[in-house]
């Protein structure tokens, strides 16, 4: 296992922290490079919105994968990066929305209102983003302590957000559902795992 290899070595957690901090910025850096060198085709606006949307979804899925991976492979070290991955999800979602509002709508208020009222997948996507904000705000250790048990309850919203994001994605299918099926199956796995954990008898020792 490559990752347990990392854990086994004396790689400092600090180095790992920097890795997890920098890796999610790579897609954005790539996007800037492509946009700068006019490599995004005849409709760069659409390309940017699509790309940032897809990475929001991917980061959310990765965030949701932390707990199952930690439990299944006993990767306790993974837990401390969940917050950062979650915040990156919010970050990409905000970039996605800003790109849509700027590059597609040109900040025209009339269009913004029209899109919000007429495009159902945009309503659903906006709702998912709105719900992400309180999770981001309460993600600090201090807030976690302050909210206690309520923090866990609040952060279960992430399952609702994931489902909304999936609906947002599915609702845009024109003729091929390949990507939607791919991400849908992964999400089913991620959520299914949690249901399965809840239903099976408690293990004797907690992990």
């Amino acid at each position, binding site marked *: 296992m490559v990752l347990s290899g990392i854990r086994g070595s004396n790689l400092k957690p600090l180095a790992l922290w920097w890795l997890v901090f920098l890796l999610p910025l790579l897609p954005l850096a790539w996007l800037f490079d492509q946009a700068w060198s006019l490599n995004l085709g005849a409709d760069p606006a659409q390309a940017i919105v699509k790309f940032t949307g897809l990475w929001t979804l991917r980061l959310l899925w990765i965030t949701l994968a932390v707990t199952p991976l930690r439990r299944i492979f006993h990767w306790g070290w993974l837990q401390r990066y969940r917050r950062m991955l979650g915040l990156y999800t919010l970050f990409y979602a905000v970039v996605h929305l800003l790109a849509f509002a700027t590059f*597609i709508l040109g900040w025209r208020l009339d269009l913004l209102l029209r899109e919000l009222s007429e495009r159902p997948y945009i309503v659903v996507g906006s709702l998912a983003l709105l719900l992400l904000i309180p999770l981001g705000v309460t993600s600090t250790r201090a807030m976690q302590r302050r909210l206690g048990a309520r923090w866990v309850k609040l952060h279960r919203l992430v399952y609702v957000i994931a489902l909304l994001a999936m609906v947002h994605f599915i609702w845009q299918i024109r*003729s091929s559902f390949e990507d939607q099926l791919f991400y849908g199956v992964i999400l089913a796995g991620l959520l299914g795992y949690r249901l399965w954990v809840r239903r099976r008898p408690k293990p004797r020792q907690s992990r």
Partner: protein
Amino acid sequence: MLIKRRSPIKSSDITPESVYVNRRRFLQGLAGTTALALTEGASAIPAYSLDRDQPQYPGPDWLQRALRESTRNEAFSTDEKPAPYGNIITHNNFYEFGLGKQDPSLKAQDFKTDPWTVEIAGEVDKPGVYNLEDLLRPHALEERIYRLRCVEAWSMVIPWMGFSLGDLLKRFEPTSRARYVEFTTLKDPEQMPGQRSFFSTLDWPYVEGLRMDEAMHPLTLLAVGLYGNALPPQNGAPFRLVVPWKYGFKSIKSVVKIRLVEEMPGTTWNRTASGEYGFYANVNPAVDHPRWSQATERRLPSSLFSPNIIDTLPFNGYADEVAGLYSGMDLKQWF
């Protein structure tokens, strides 16, 4: 990268070498000659300066003369600025070659478009299967600069080379029972990776249709060229339909069959989602797609920070010419 297409040369195609000059130089030389009889509303098309790094598509030898002698139909051309060649050949919805806008330009380069046969069938007195070369021979090509409005709410201005579909249909003598025209794209999964996809909800081959009066309307174009060149494979080579007042998906690409029929033909997008894509699919800002508005469009190319958003016009701005075809029809019902 220069993509050349070779075709077997028939003796009939052998032309004096002097004719095989660069199109641009030929047109420059044309200024002082009377080689072209200019008809009213038509003029010699300008030599385009395509970006040097763009692939160009000379097309088969037999097409060269018609391309060279083509004139611009000013009466049917918009004076809006055409999208750059590089944009037109890399932004295509041609799902037979993938779903991404750039997929066709990447995956269609080996698509064999010459020789090409077209079947004319159904309610005509002279049905048959024809070589494209023979099918096109009687028709002079003209350039028409049309707006193309995609159902996805973007648009482009495109200089096509072609001729009116009606002129072609007349030659095959439609019978009195011909009320609709059905068009079919090539089905060849070997060459068209999109047709091999398990996840597509579209049925292949791609089929489109027009009512007879729409098909006979002089604006309805059969295109074989783009920007003075042959049609690139990703734009529907060698032979496609362009109906400028309808959403782009009506303008079927790489046509192998034209069938005149009595009943309204089933069309591909309509079969897949009849609530979203109607048979008529006339550009109409007042009738939204169920999932998005059609009131405005983004004219490409568009600047990132001040997007080129324009109001969509009824019948894509061709209402004066075509609105009469639909008088008395409820366009909300027959979207």
